[in-house]
């Protein structure tokens, strides 16, 4: 009975926010065919389905094409500086558990200039969703090699082809202490993008999603081999993981039942080079969250501040001779 009533109430609330309530008055200015558009739509769908009040939702980003996303959301947004989205998001979350924090970042923003923050953010395991828009190239600055660019890629800074093997954001993240959620998806399968994002949102902790994202301008046809050959996409399923619609299952037959608690298998899947695993690679809901560890036992009040200040002053106090004697 109670359950029914709360369900009714929930339904009433759910009618409050529609897709358009999360769309800002600014039309996205990404290039035609840019994968970021699909990610934005998935974000807005998630907000609607989870009925997140726009004023309680904060999208934080750094600098780059992906980092323009907060401008296109009707929510609080913080379009910061290159590489620093994560520490800004951590600062936002530390005293505001009521806010839903999403971070959008790119492969340059997160894996190059902001790489140190990435490692530590995983370790802090603060409750937020991080979307790494990985198009494997610098777009906003017009085609330079990024840390995730494939070896041999010709760019303006690597005219003879990128010389180094790319950094793998999945294996790196999985290798960091306190990792609690790592997933991968691709912008060209919107249903699975949404599903993964929803699982990330519902996970308590630092939910890291690497999203392979097309850049039609500088990396045209780069993902064609994967898009055109469904066998090269491996869907990770689990009773508590991706729910596959029949039409998806019909196309993507390369599936594996993967327990997200299985770290060795997660690392093996993350290291696949010819196939793209899609779904949750790793999930551990039991990792402590830094924001909860630092939440404190009591709120700061003027009375508390006064008490503690006086305690500290007493330790280093000098009193007029008379009163000092009176205390003894």
């Amino acid at each position, binding site marked *: 009975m109670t359950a029914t009533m709360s369900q009714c109430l929930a339904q009433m609330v759910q009618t409050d926010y529609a897709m358009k309530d999360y769309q800002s008055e600014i039309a996205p200015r990404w290039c035609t065919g840019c994968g970021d558009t699909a990610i934005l739509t998935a974000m807005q769908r998630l907000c609607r389905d989870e009925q997140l009040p726009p004023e309680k939702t904060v999208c934080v980003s750094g600098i780059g094409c992906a980092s323009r996303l907060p401008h296109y959301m009707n929510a609080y947004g913080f379009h910061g500086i290159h590489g620093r989205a994560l520490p800004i998001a951590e600062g936002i979350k530390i*005293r505001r558990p009521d806010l839903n924090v999403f971070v959008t970042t790119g492969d340059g923003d997160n894996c190059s200039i902001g790489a140190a923050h990435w490692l530590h953010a995983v370790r802090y395991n603060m409750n937020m969703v991080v979307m790494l828009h990985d198009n494997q190239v610098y777009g906003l600055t017009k085609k330079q090699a990024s840390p995730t660019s494939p070896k041999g890629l010709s760019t303006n800074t690597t005219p003879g082809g990128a010389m180094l093997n790319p950094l793998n954001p999945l294996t790196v993240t999985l290798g960091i202490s306190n990792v609690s959620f790592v997933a991968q998806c691709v912008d060209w399968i919107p249903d699975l993008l949404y599903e993964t994002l929803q699982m990330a949102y519902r996970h308590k902790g630092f939910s890291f999603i690497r999203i392979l994202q097309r850049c039609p301008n500088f990396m045209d046809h780069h993902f064609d081999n994967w898009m055109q050959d469904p066998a090269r996409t491996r869907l990770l399923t689990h009773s508590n993981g991706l729910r596959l619609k029949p039409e998806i299952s019909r196309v993507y037959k390369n599936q594996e039942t993967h327990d997200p608690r299985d770290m060795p298998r997660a690392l093996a899947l993350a290291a696949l080079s010819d196939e793209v695993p899609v779904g949750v690679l790793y999930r551990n809901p039991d990792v402590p969250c830094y924001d909860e560890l630092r939440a404190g036992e009591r709120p700061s009040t003027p009375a508390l501040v006064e008490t503690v200040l*006086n305690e500290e002053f007493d330790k280093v106090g000098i009193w007029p001779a008379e009163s000092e004697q009176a205390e003894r």
Partner: protein
Amino acid sequence: MTTEGTQVFAEIADPMDRVPPKAGRPAEVIEEHIVEIVSDSGEGAQRCGQSLASIAARMGMGIWTVEIIPAEIQPPHRSIAGASGNRVRMAAKPVTNIGDEADLVVAFNEQVLLSRLRAGEVKPGATILMENAWENDLNPSIATAYVKVCAEVREAGYNLIEVPMEKECQKYVPDPRKGKNMFVLGMLCAIYSLDAEKARAQVRYIFAKKDQRIINANIELLDAGRAWAEANLDIAYTIPAPPVAEEQVVMNGNAALALGTVASGMEVCAMYPITPATSASHYLSSIFEKVGCVVHQAEDEISACAFAIGASYAGKCAVTITSGPGLSLKQEAIGLAVMSEIPLVVIDVQRGGPSTGLPTKVEQGDLMSAMFGTHGDAPKVIMAVSSIEDCFHSVITARKIAETFNMVVVILSDAALATAQQPYKRPKFRADWLAPPVNQSAVPEHAHPYDWDERTGIATRFIPGQPNGMHCLTGLAHDRDSHVAYDPQINEEGLLNRSRKLAAFQKTLRLEPVHGGDEGELLLLGWGSTRGAIQEAVDRLRAEGHKVSSLHLKFLQPMASGIDKVMKRFDRVMTIENNWNDPVSDPLIDENNRRYSHLAMLLRSRWLVDVDCWGNARGQPLKPGAIHDAALAKLVQARGEEQ
């Protein structure tokens, strides 16, 4: 132990031969003394000095202490670079600075003494109490070095007294290295006629967390030191101070910054370890959680600043505490806070620079980088602290300015204030020190997140959680709706309003009174930790009949109105700063290329006044005597030019 070869004091080296204390021996009445206690790192000289100061302060004396800190955690023993200790100025009146050279030095070995002598920190003819165990060291090179240095020190005219500290301490504790400092404290209490019960109370306080056995052993050592000095030394002083009249607290500048942070109502401090700022964060870490707040040790200086900006954005103003190299790293993030108008307090405890520079030493070298370090036009408030009490209250003021004007406020302290202790009037808590609760009320429909008031440049910011306030804050040029804008007019509108806030704030500033006389031959201008030393120099010069005054600036950006009018009432103007300026005596330097000290540069550019500068970047606080001499030289030069 043989005492042969320690000619002068051989007769007192073994106290057991002596008769008991000379009760009621006359003590010389003095106005003040500067005492240094120096040892190898870890021998407790710092604790000894701080305790001496605390006891003196409880007797009503004015005190100022400074730590003598080696740059390394475990520097080699018996090395010049390893000198560690404390310098205490005790006076009948309140003191505002560390003063000139030391009158009395207690040295635990001859090498650390050499370090102080070579640094020019000891007055000619000063009394030196030296541990004499080294004379019989099993290592002949140590014994030889000791004897040689002692001879040189005597030769140089110092009153060297060799004291069998270790030998005496061994009577009470098995390892004299632990406890010698309390024996020395007892000696100093005897020399300066300090109250025995207050001294014991201090020892009980510093060992409060230890068990009773240790407390008793240390009190025994303290009393033994006193008894030994009374029996064996013929030096005794009294510094007649009035009894303490009002409640005071005694702490160093970094502790005052930490307590000021608590009192300001800021709830988040994000930092990264750096000398000499870190001790403020250490202390804050030990108390901030008790008031429900957080010290976050970030992975680097940049993230510490970005974290503080995020926390400010989401509610109340936050603080990041650092030193020079950290300030350099934070600059881009500071620019973001300026551009997006997020309130932020940055505390910079300055040290010698550039680069890693002199991590443990003082320099006022960051004024320009604090003011102009960020690319583009980035107006922010720069204020400097000039006493321990000022450290406490300035954080409260800074938070208020930051939140009233949605600006970055940089507080400049330095290594001299960081570890200097001074008593000040116990602050009485006021609820209005704290920030009001975070505004979560609905924003009126169609309100703009950057609705700049053209009279002040201020826009009321919208905080996440406020319905209708959704907008995307950005470091890009933006319009009143926070929409990215590349339009030239919109860009200038933002620049104008951010600059206006500084001008509006400037209208609230009042110049502090001139110290000395309202007009005269020479005006000295200073900022930050040099206040006490400059004013003391001015007092001495005026007592000698020179028409010298000083003006100290708390706000460096913006500066209060009226500084030009003050400068015009003096024939000459000179800044006194603890930072670099090109010496005019250098053959390469002339008026076309001379680089002035920071404040001098600022004053010259704003008011077209021929401001000279004096100071140095030797890593030491400026002494009143040196400032006095520099001002006198300037007067002599000026009088010569006029003839």
